[in-house]
């Protein structure tokens, strides 16, 4: 009985892994195709589509835009999230529960609807479509996340260190910069990198709120109009590689910091 369960488990697990990996393996394999259709038979390996991607200025500038939007919107989100988390954790504010609920509310609404709302508002207010508009949207989706992560990590021990610093005569800004920020660094990093990955991969909001200069997922979306194309495979594989580097970096920085 036990052996049957064990064999069945193996078969099932392998089948699920196969299902999970199938599209990605196909994606990466046919990014190395040397002919112009990413379908069997495999004719590679060849790096010509990677070359095509890297010499495509629309894609490379979209990549730079994506990084820019991701870094700036995440920095804004984590700053606002950190300050508000500090305020709510340290002071008794009237209606605190309600206000905290308000900050985390965007987590419950789909990106499509957040993007739609901003589109309607900006349209009324005459704000043109731009990367800035998309960045504002990315702060809306990531601020609640940063707030929740940092707020949940603010505990008594950190507040006691702050009090000690204040008793020793440190002014408020010094407490913030020299005590609170370093103590909260792991949570701040976690919020920042999580925001980065969400912003980096976000499509609908950028799609609705940008026009000419746009982000990488939107530019990839535009590539899809040409149907199956090894160039799309190559971009996808590159994004995959960048994301994995980011994740490994994230894992290492967090794991390194935890024991400290």
């Amino acid at each position, binding site marked *: 009985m036990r052996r049957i*369960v064990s064999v069945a*488990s193996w078969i*099932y*697990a392998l089948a*699920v*892994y196969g299902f*999970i990996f*199938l*599209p*990605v393996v*196909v*994606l990466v394999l*046919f990014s190395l195709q040397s002919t112009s259709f990413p*379908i*069997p038979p495999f004719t590679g390996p060849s790096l010509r589509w990677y070359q095509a991607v890297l010499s495509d200025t629309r894609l490379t500038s979209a990549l730079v835009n994506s990084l820019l939007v991701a870094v700036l919107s995440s920095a804004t989100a984590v700053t*606002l*999230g950190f300050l*508000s988390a500090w*305020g*709510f*954790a*340290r*002071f*008794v*504010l009237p209606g605190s529960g309600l206000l905290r609920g*308000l*900050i985390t509310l965007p987590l*419950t609404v*789909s990106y*499509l*609807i957040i993007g*739609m*709302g*901003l*589109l*309607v*508002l900006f*349209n009324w207010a005459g704000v043109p479509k731009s990367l800035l508009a998309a960045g*504002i*949207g990315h702060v*809306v989706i990531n601020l*609640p996340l940063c*707030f929740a992560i940092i*707020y949940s990590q603010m505990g008594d021990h950190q*507040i006691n260190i702050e009090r000690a610093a*204040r008793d020793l005569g440190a002014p*408020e800004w010094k407490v913030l910069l020299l005590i609170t920020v370093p103590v909260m660094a792991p949570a701040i990093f976690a919020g920042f990198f999580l925001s980065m990955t969400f912003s980096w991969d976000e*499509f*609908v909001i950028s799609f609705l709120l940008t026009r000419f200069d746009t982000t990488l*997922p939107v530019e*990839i979306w535009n590539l*899809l109009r040409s149907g*199956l194309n090894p160039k799309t*495979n190559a971009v*996808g594989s590159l*994004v*995959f590689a960048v*994301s*994995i580097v980011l*994740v490994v970096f994230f894992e290492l920085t967090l794991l390194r910091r935890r024991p400290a």
Partner: protein
Amino acid sequence: MSTAGNRTGRALPRASDALPWALVTPALGWTLLFFVLPFVAMGLSSFTAHEGGAATWSNYSQFFANPAYWQAMVNSLQVTAIVTVVSVLLAYPFAWILAEQVPERWQRLALMLAVLPFWTSYVVRSYSWLLVLAQNGVINRALTGSGLISEPLQLANTRLATVTGFVHFFVMLLTLTIFANLKQLSPSYRKAAADLGAGPVRTFLHVILPLTLPGIMVGAFLTFVLCIGDYITPQILGGNNELLMPQLVMMQIGRRGDFPLASALSIILMAVVTVAYLACARWLKIERT
């Protein structure tokens, strides 16, 4: 958290008036300005026939009167229901195997491996399924090559393709949540069941499964919410043969520039999600008591 706030609330005698508000106002202001206000604008817009027009119900009545719109909601609900059920059924045994059959020290690696393919961009991941399911894609080539079928099957641009793309994503998500749930169970439950004479099957059905049910519900609800609001997967894999709600919303903006109707459809979609949440929350409470 609130205890920390209470205890230190008086630690700052003078600054306590202006400083706390200076800290929380930027975040609150951002949320009000770029989340609440857009929502109000969308709500107002949904009651106009065209930009700046007089108040009217026409966008909402249009939704209920036009069978094509109505059908999009039915499609969305059907696809979401199928995806949620299939994903839970596939993910539960997988999570169970990872938590119970895989040796402890390999579990972290096994889990990381299961998540790895999802670090491509979401758009690219849907596109990769197109490579697999296309007319002359991997599956059709394999099937015709082996002589199982003579004509390629229509796999892409179907509901099946949309469901496959969604299930792929949500099996991963649900495996993570169910795995975490299984690991949280104390081993003493299992020992107690064994001591009382229950076999492994009985232990699973009467102890493990009921204890992980609330976690499954949370995962299933998350699947429902993310699935019903997603535009990318149905647009890339399902195509325009059969529209889902997010596609219908985007179509009003893209082709027709009809913001009021798009707003009304978004609000209807959100209302459905809210109803689902209320139903789910109630069900969860009943389970706990």
